[in-house]
């Protein structure tokens, strides 16, 4: 018999809140997390704002000695995992530990540590490189540290597929449980790339909004005045669990994950083909694997980062897949990046969590800053205010540099 997989815990950290309930409240209020960068001196940078996590103290989640040995993306992952584990009530013991795994990725990893240690090396020579440089910075150490903290001795992996990272982490973790290699997985992603090289690098690509004088209105997916994405930081972690395992321990089930689709554009390093064929196939594969039709879907949390080409291309791909169901505005589509910024490798985790909350609350969160809709975008993007709706099946999209695409399907749990 097919093993079913459900979501039993949720942990979110972002610029609009350091817990899932806080993130949800602020999404519904349409609050923006964007502000001038406080983490470093932005003099000389063409972009001086971002969506930074606020009032975050890593020492709430890791002790001082250990905190020093972790890049910020690991701190954020530890915080989101803490909330996810608490909310799931899952206790990892010597007995069940080998059946619980971790799948937490990051697009970029520890830029903060890499920059710091590189500077130390340039200033003082190679002897000044910390022995903790490598394990503090490399991408799979979020998954490693989580496993150490909780005693999760099952599969331990980290994906690094740019902005699709944590959609892939969650999708792959779902498959691991489905095929019987684990009974529960701590899955998602984390990112902390608001550093001189992170902001400077994306700015050099001319990928970012330069609306420095008005950060709160800078991220405007599907709006004709959009001018690039806004870098966000944070983490999104789900506890995925085999259905019978969750039931046996009386867990509160938040939603079921029923489908996962992937594809590649095989087109360009950073651009997508105009017809959005890769996005289309990722969504189509996800719906096929979920055994649902496009008409069964009521909400899509879009990837839509507020770039000129990306948003219209994704919209076109949705129009092709969902047809009249979308053009009639029955299908609700929103880009919550308008408030959280783009968490890059953490986006899929944060947005999967938001999608689960949309199913729980039966509300589609809005796309903010949507004042003049791009004429090429003709669907219902839930402009500026949330929409109550019957949502039984919802999709979360992520597309990344390298032309890598992922789409997750969740079903409401009744």
């Amino acid at each position: 018999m097919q093993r079913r997989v459900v979501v039993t815990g949720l942990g979110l950290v972002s610029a609009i809140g350091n817990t899932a309930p806080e993130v949800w409240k602020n999404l519904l209020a349409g609050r923006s997390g964007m502000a001038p960068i406080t983490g470093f001196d932005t003099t000389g940078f063409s972009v001086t704002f971002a969506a930074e996590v606020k009032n975050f103290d890593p020492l709430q989640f890791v002790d001082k000695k250990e905190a020093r040995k972790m890049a910020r993306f690991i701190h954020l992952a530890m915080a989101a995992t803490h909330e996810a584990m608490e909310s799931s009530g899952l206790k990892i013991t010597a007995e069940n530990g080998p059946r619980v795994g971790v799948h937490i990725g990051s697009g970029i990893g520890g830029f903060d540590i890499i920059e710091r240690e590189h500077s130390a090396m340039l200033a003082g020579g190679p002897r000044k490189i910390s022995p903790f440089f490598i394990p503090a910075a490399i991408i799979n150490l979020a998954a490693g540290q989580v496993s150490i903290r909780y005693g999760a001795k099952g599969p331990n992996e980290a994906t690094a597929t740019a902005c699709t990272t944590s959609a892939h982490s969650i999708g792959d973790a779902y498959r691991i449980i489905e095929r019987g290699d684990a009974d529960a997985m701590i899955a998602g992603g984390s990112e902390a790339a608001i550093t001189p090289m992170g902001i400077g690098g994306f700015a050099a690509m001319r990928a970012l909004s330069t609306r420095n004088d008005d950060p709160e209105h800078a991220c405007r997916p599907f709006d004709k005045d959009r001018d690039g994405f806004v870098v966000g930081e944070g983490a999104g972690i789900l506890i995925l669990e085999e259905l019978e395992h969750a039931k046996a321990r009386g867990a509160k089930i938040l939603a079921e994950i029923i489908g996962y689709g992937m594809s590649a554009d095989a087109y360009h390093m950073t651009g997508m083909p105009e017809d959005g064929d890769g996005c289309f196939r990722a969504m189509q594969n996800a719906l096929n694997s979920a055994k649902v039709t496009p008409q069964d879907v009521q909400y899509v949390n879009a990837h839509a980062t507020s770039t000129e080409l990306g948003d219209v291309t994704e919209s076109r791909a949705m129009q092709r897949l969902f047809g009249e169901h979308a053009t009639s505005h029955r299908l609700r589509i929103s880009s919550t990046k308008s408030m959280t910024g783009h968490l890059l490798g953490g986006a899929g985790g944060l947005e999967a969590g938001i999608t689960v909350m949309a199913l729980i609350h039966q509300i589609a969160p809005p796309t903010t800053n949507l004042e003049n809709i791009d004429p090429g975008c003709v669907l219902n993007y839930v402009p500026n205010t949330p929409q109550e709706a019957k949502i039984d099946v919802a999709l979360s999209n992520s597309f990344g540099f390298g032309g890598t695409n992922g789409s997750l399907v969740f079903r409401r749990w009744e």
Partner: protein
Amino acid sequence: MAAVEEKVKQIIVEQLQVDEAEVTPGASFQEDLGADSLDVVELVMQFEEAFDLEIPDEDAEKIKTVKDAIEYIEKNAKGGK
């Protein structure tokens, strides 16, 4: 000389996040103070920084206890305080 001892203890307390009372002369970094091999490498880097020293790896390997560190530094420190 007591200044060296004081400073060494202070660095150990900060780096290894242990109680000052635990930092006795005979305490071993790895066996008594919860350090792993990488913690010891970092600790030695902190001693180098604080006492303006360069401790070669073959010497660093022999610094295993609080007393080892104090003695080594007292013998080799140039302008440390």
